């Protein structure tokens, strides 16, 4: 991937050789990361891919086994305390106090960040308005719905107006409509100059990021903007429509040029060798040659999910070869 390398001063986060070894498992393995300022940067990866560990190291909660980190120009974990005021962190699990009300939680956070009375008078009501918490002020946080909790958590994480916001799978317990609203507020924050690093395993969320890194088993397998990633994919993507897609899928597993198949309703999404000149025609001939019927076979633009599957599959293949 030929990304233009941003100048150092534009980077909110720069990590080199970041590694975390938990003894029996390497959670993050030799990761290089450049997160530009004023953008939403995504971490895409399945559970256990090292997203949370990585975020925790970046905000100084975990000490890396190896590697160097610079966040907002601060040396982490050495200068982690100085970083606290400049970053907000929204944990994967709701971590505000469930037995306090919404307004008590906000007041507590405001005081923990030692906002002055004057600042509190402006920022708390504006956060309440912005995240639509007005009706919930007297409600205990534990009784809020997933979406409401998320809004409260984001309000709390941004009360001290951080330059950089870490969001660890912020929408895992939120319905699609609230997820949309949540992302709208993230773009509002970015428009105000905040940098956001968000981890997710939802493809639609990853598509919304300015740039993202795909993580798998602690390794960075691809990085770039969603469009760049789609262009850089190591495979061609075909859509095959057929009456009996299951049979075709089973057959195609034996074809050497097919990387993977995935069924979506009555269609198959197939990844084949990128080097093929005419992948759609070659595939159609192969299927028909085996006496199977198909309605349609065409090449399509790769989605982020395809990128993700291709990137993780390529790694699996090279691992299998090594073994």
């Amino acid at each position, binding site marked *: 991937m030929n990304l233009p390398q941003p100048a150092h001063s534009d980077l909110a986060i720069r990590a080199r050789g970041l590694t975390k070894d938990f003894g029996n498992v390497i959670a993050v393995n030799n990761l290089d990361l450049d997160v530009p300022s004023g953008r939403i940067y995504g971490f895409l990866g399945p559970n256990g891919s090292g997203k949370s560990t990585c975020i*925790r190291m970046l*905000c*100084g*909660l*975990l*000490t890396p086994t190896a590697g160097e980190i610079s966040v907002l120009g601060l040396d982490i*974990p050495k200068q*982690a*305390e100085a970083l*606290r*005021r400049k*970053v907000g*962190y929204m*944990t994967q*699990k*709701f*971590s*505000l*106090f*469930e*037995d*306090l009300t919404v307004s*008590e939680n906000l*007041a*507590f*956070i405001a*005081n*923990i*960040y*030692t906002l002055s009375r004057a600042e509190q008078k402006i920022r708390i009501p504006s956060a309440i308005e912005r995240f639509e918490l007005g009706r919930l002020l007297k409600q*205990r946080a534990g009784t809020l719905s997933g979406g409401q909790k998320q809004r409260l958590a984001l309000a709390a994480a941004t009360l001290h107006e951080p330059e950089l916001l870490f969001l660890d799978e912020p929408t895992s317990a939120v319905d699609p409509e609230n997820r949309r609203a949540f992302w709208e507020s993230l773009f509002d924050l970015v428009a105000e100059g905040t940098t956001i690093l968000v981890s997710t395993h939802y493809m639609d969320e990853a598509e919304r990021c300015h740039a993202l890194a795909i993580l798998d088993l602690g390794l960075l397998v691809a990085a770039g903007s969603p469009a760049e990633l789609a262009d850089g994919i190591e495979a061609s993507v075909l859509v095959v429509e057929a009456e009996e897609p299951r049979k075709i899928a089973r057959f195609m597993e034996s074809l050497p040029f097919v990387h993977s198949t995935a069924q979506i309703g009555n269609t198959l999404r197939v990844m084949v060798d990128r080097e093929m000149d005419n992948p759609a025609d070659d595939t159609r001939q192969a299927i028909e040659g085996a006496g199977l019927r198909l309605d349609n076979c065409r090449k399509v633009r790769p989605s982020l999910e395809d990128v993700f599957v291709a990137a993780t599959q390529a790694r699996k293949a090279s691992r299998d070869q090594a073994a």
Partner: protein
Amino acid sequence: MKSLQRIFAIVVKELRQLSRDRLTFGMIVGIPAIQLLMFGFAINMDVRHLSAGVADFSNSAASRQIVMDLAQTQVIDINYQASDAEELESLMRQGKIVVGIYIPPDYERRLQQPERSAMQLLVDGSDTVVQGAVVGIANSSRISPYNDRPPVMEVRTYYNPERRSPVNTVPGLIGVILTMTMTLFTAVAIVRERERGNLELLITTPVRSGELMLAKILPYVFIGLLQVTLVLVLGVWLFDVPIRGALIDVYRVCLMFIIANLALGLVISTVAQTQFQAMQMTFFFLLPSILLSGFMFPFDGMPKAAQWIAEVLPMTHFMRLIRGVVLRGASLPELSTELGILAGFILIAMTIAILRFNKRLD
């Protein structure tokens, strides 16, 4: 100033959460009240309605009068009539009575000879409080019908002739209650935040470890002093525990002990991963504290090894302090060694807690 704002914010939060956690709130008041009533019940029992038997060989107006007088004190309930002294002893051995009244056949003549004891009170002395109560009624003045001197009663104590002061229990109980609640509350308060994920949020904020620790224990200092007050009020009101030393000294000593236990709770909280573990570790400390501190058994009677273990427990030193102040009316300078040891314990425990609690997850 900023530090104060953060500490104050956490203290307010803790108190709010506490007032909503009905179980813990109930324990703050419930543990001292129930323990005091439980332990104190023994004290209360002997003072009233002790089961008694009478062997009246005199069978005279005067003997019936003295039995009635004794019954009217309500300290004893006459449940058995015995035919001889042996039967009284037998009833006592069986546990049916704790007090036996023996009136000899020549009771009326003995009354006229004040140098001789007119009758005998037999006491089951296993419970020291029973002894005290019976000695009390034996000495209370009752006018003999023959002269203005009270009848002399000889008290014979069975099973435990060496009296131990019953008021030992209540001051000691303060120690048991504070060890149990203070250690447990702090340990659980922090471990619960870790379990619920609150701690992950708190450690990403500018709060310093020391501030967090201090703010976590401050509310419990007030609660501890509240419990001390509760036990003292109940102890004085229900069980007539004398407070011979200065009240302010009682609170000073308790404050030291409260802080020692809170510090211990903090250390536990840095080790325990779950609330259940925190509870187990608290009881790991509580049991030897109750058994070895001198609360249950006299310290001097214990084997040397047990005494060494006991010296490490803050409760042992608190027992000496609180009994010294409450029962013997000692002043704090006289007890400076024990205070010094408690202060040392606090210092060591707090240092360990702050060192162990780093603002990291690993």
